[in-house]
């Protein structure tokens, strides 16, 4: 009986997971309706958001690795895979933080979780377009490959537009307020990065000071 129940719950939660995964396809085609229900009707889930972010990071790497060399000038000897991952993940996360900081001050309805889910679902077009293009790039000639850059632009543009709509719907903002918030979020990101750099710089200077102090004392003592 107990086992049955747990299996039933598992099955239900898996069904919910699948539904929220499928919902990503609805969101990218019906963004206004989609993003509203995503957070307000709990149609999206954190698990799916994590998976989408992970897929985005992987897509970035796959593109670098598997795009045909005709359209690809990545020099693998110079690539640090962790820098590549962090270089994409950090801006995404910092965006969430900056957006949250800003919207909390300006009557945003969304919580951090909602912002993150909205951002993650917005990345779906990037994943959906870039990966097939990467595969196709191995089957075309240079002349036929001219479309690749177009598709890259489309993927990025679509994702950016979705992020904008997600700001609008998640926080229940008007269109202009959403655009302003988006722009100021980016300014906020820069401020956060600046503060982080300042912080680490000061900390390392501070540590350096104590290390040199210790060395000096050691020289004097011995």
């Amino acid at each position, binding site marked *: 009986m107990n086992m049955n129940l747990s299996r039933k719950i598992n099955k239900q939660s898996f069904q919910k997971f699948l539904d929220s995964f499928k919902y990503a396809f609805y969101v990218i085609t019906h963004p206004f309706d989609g993003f509203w229900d995503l957070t307000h009707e709990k149609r999206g889930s954190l698990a799916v958001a994590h998976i989408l972010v992970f897929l985005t990071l992987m897509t970035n790497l796959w593109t670098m690795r598997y795009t045909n*060399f*005709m359209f690809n000038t990545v*020099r693998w000897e110079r690539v640090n895979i962790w820098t590549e991952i962090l270089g994409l993940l950090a801006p995404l996360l910092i965006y969430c933080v900056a957006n949250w900081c800003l919207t909390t001050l300006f009557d945003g309805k969304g919580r951090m979780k909602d912002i993150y889910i909205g951002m993650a679902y917005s990345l779906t077009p990037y994943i959906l377009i870039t990966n097939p293009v990467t595969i196709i790039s191995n*089957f075309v*000639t*240079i*002349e036929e490959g001219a479309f690749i850059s177009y598709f890259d632009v489309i993927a990025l543009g679509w994702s950016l537009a979705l992020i904008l709509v997600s700001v609008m719907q998640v926080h229940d903002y008007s269109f202009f307020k959403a655009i302003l918030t988006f722009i100021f979020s980016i300014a906020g990101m820069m401020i956060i990065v600046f503060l982080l750099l300042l912080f680490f710089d000061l900390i390392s200077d501070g540590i350096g000071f104590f290390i040199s102090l210790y060395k000096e004392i050691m020289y004097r003592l011995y």
Partner: protein
Amino acid sequence: MKLKRKVATALLVALTILSICPAKVASATEVNSYTYNYDFWGIEYESPDAYTPVSYVDGKALGTTSMSAPDSLYARDNRLFVVDTGRNRILELLVTDGELSLTREILEVKDDELEVKTLNGPMDIFQTENGDLYIADTANHRILHTNYDLEVIKVIYRPVSASVDQGIDFEPTKLVVDRADRVFCLARNVNRGLMQFEASGEFIGFLGANEVVFSMADKIKKMLSTRAQKEKMADFMPVEYNNIYIDDLAFVYSTSDNFKTEEADAGTAKPIRKLNALGKDILIRNGEYFPMGDLQWGDSSNKYGPSRIEDITAFDDGTYYVVDRIRGRIFGYDEQGHLLYAFGGPGHKLGYHVNPTSIEHVGTDLYVLDSVTGGITRYVRTEFGDLIHSALDEYSVGNYEKSAEYWKEVLARNGNYELAYIGIGRSLLRQEDYEGAMEYFEAKRDDDNYSRAWKYYRKDWIENNMGYVIIVLVVLFLIPGVVKRIKKMRWEAREQYEYELKQKNK
């Protein structure tokens, strides 16, 4: 115990041998290898010598006084002219088996009417096929046209023309003459291109004016600046050419310093041009980087910035060699604008230059003139260089298989030689071995050729597997219909079942 001692002895012997050997190996590898090449990423790789310096000859060695700031070399058949600017003379040398011997010194010309017969700071000389000489007598503001015995045929002075500034002295620095006896000359303080003279000496006009580089940033700057600033900006002038060379087909090669640092950084500077009769630049730049000398440079020992191409000499097969006056290097390029090899460097040793001003070729030998040391260095093509040129020549006449053989020989001597891979790939492409060609092209990232090979390979594959392709297409075409049909049938069955259930319940 005995065994131990034996082992110890053996070890000692081995150690002794090992400690001697590396020293020997090191001295064996220390050959005069200073040739290099750049790969796809612009990184330099060492290469065997394609040209090797064999001799250095200065004025004393030729049996005359030493040279002072010689500015130009000119070669025709087996005669080599050295324009010794500082000593107001031109030396005519005879080249026999690479050895230089002085034929005569040209100090003055023969003419009854000319007031000044001596040369004054000459900077260039040209000899036509029939032996006539054209001398750029720079400080005398004239171009002298004489026969081989130095009897003056005509003299060209500053042209009287609206397009030539009459307030500036005519100081011809470099000149070439085409088969129709048209003179193309560079003159000091003239920056509108090459001055072109008819066989009669009449001025025709300018050719190949250096493009004025004017960017969007300049435009915005101009919009924001005041009138006084604008007037100052108007002084911006295109830079003059450094040197010119005319090849067998009457195309004029020119070199200049006229490029921006950003262009040099990006590998897209155009210091070398090949002008057609209309003055249009038709140099082929198919390489990953434009022909511009070094792709990487360090700033040290008073040597700053990118290469400054001072002179150029072109072979009949379309390859050309340029010399960099900053670092004393020589760069060879093929007809397509790929770097063949670079060699040389700054310094006083044999094969190094302090301030090279001119490069010429006699046969396959290269002669480089250094204006500071006042001497001529002779370079001889090595076996490696011969192989490269043979491969290029065989390809250009259509012997692709033979060309590939030569490239394989090149690869055996230098496994990093990019053009060899591409050359073999191209010959495989001609032999319709597309897969092999693709492999070679991908190894050196030649995307254009790879794309071509891939196109044929794909076409072949589709033709050979046409049956499968059709089957897959048909299946893909049919699946949606079948699925629809099945769904419909199931729906109908359910409808029927529910209807029957309803009837039963009634």
